[in-house]
């Protein structure tokens, strides 16, 4: 019985963990993974994020906990999946962010939430300046009791 556990479970699990080596490296799962996290080429990555606008039209970055959880990548994935899900999914996410912003004293000045789809040159961001190569507001909604949600066609190009 002890040898069965040693080989059946011990070696069996090791073999299972090694199995993704035969998959395409982008085929990721959990807990078995190809660990592709830092391996993908990212020439002009797209980033989806939420931002707040105050009455003067100034844009404010929103912390991840306002979008989803305090995990920054999970917040980004949440915005990306909502954008991919279409206007209804974007509307629901935007409204939930607006609700949380309305309850946060720190974000009392915000009157609107925007979901943004932007493309960056990562190295140029730090060497030349933080402007995205392309920026598009895909959805907006108001903060507060009379919150209304509206999808945006958005203008492609520089901000």
């Amino acid at each position, binding site marked *: 019985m*002890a*040898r069965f*556990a*040693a080989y059946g*479970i*011990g*070696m069996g*699990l*090791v073999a299972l*963990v090694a199995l993704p*080596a035969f998959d395409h*490296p*982008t085929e*990721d*799962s*959990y*807990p*078995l*993974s*190809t*660990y*592709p*996290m*830092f*391996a*993908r*080429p*990212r*020439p002009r*990555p797209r*980033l989806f*994020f939420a931002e707040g606008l105050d009455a003067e039209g100034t844009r404010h*970055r929103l*912390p*991840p906990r306002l979008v*989803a*959880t*305090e*995990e*920054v*990548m*999970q*917040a*980004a*994935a*949440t915005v990306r*999946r*909502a954008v991919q*899900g279409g206007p209804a*999914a974007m509307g*629901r*996410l935007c409204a*939930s962010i607006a609700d949380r912003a309305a309850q946060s004293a720190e974000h009392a000045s915000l009157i609107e939430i925007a979901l943004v789809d*932007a493309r*960056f040159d*990562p*190295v140029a*961001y*730090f060497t030349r300046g*933080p402007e995205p190569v392309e920026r598009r507001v895909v959805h907006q909604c108001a903060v507060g009791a009379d919150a209304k949600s509206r999808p945006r066609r958005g203008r492609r190009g520089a901000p």
Partner: protein
Amino acid sequence: MSVVAKIVRAVDRYWYAPAPSERPAVLRIAVGGFALVYLAVRFGSFTRLARFDATQFAPVGPIAVLLSEPLSPPLLLALTLATLACAVPFVLGLYYRLTAPLFAGLFLLLTSYRSSWGMTFHTENLVCLHLLVLAFAPAADALSLDARRRPRVLEAHGRYGWAGRALSAITVVTYVLAGLAKVRLGGAGWMSGELLQAQIAYDNLRKIELGSFHSPLGAALVTETWLFAVLSWLTLVVELGAPVALAGGKLALGWALSAFGFHLGVVALMAIAFPYPLSFVAYLSLFRAERVLGARIFGRVSPRAFFSPEAPHARPVARD
């Protein structure tokens, strides 16, 4: 003796090498203890998954088989609480044969559920896999509440050796897979350092744009292309060279320190912490883990629980 028989015997000598019962017990306490603290610290992060819109649900791993829609908030809270609660008997070694597989299974489900919302938490894979191995190993035959009810095991045996070997092999395989992914996906771009430079730049820029804290060091060094070529090669040496750790001794120590240094580098340049390797618990199985019991602190904390009349590694060996 045929070549095949010689190979089988050599594998068996390595995999089923006699070890004292304290070895898997120390691993149980260390890995289980890490998981317990991790769950307690991240409790809110797990329960806040209830905030997500159901359309965001993208099940992975066992969750893809078990669930077609998200858990209700009370069920998610119950799952998180049950996982946290089951970590306690796992660490204490209480009714281990029942509670250990239960805890490892719940941990697998909870962490799979967390990764089922569009982002895989690669920080949790290794601890989850280690828990699964330990759950089916005789890791509570010493230093446990179960062990107090049984006669003391004083002989080293192969049944206490395989779990540590399996943990080490899994650790090594995960690093090799990460190295292979870099070679297969990045290719020449990875070797030149260009890909790592872009990766570090992108990671820091997205943290800035997403309103989180980033690494000022990583942002400041983005222009140093030569540095990223060096770091890329070092990363590949650590990841693809991981199998040397299975040789044990100084090679294992050298590799574990290199891998630990690699994770420190990731923290410094990308502000991404892999808590399990950074706690060093991930590498404990590469060594004779029971030797930590010789450290003074354990004698002071609980002499009754940890005192052993003779050094565990000097025990007589029992065979099947």
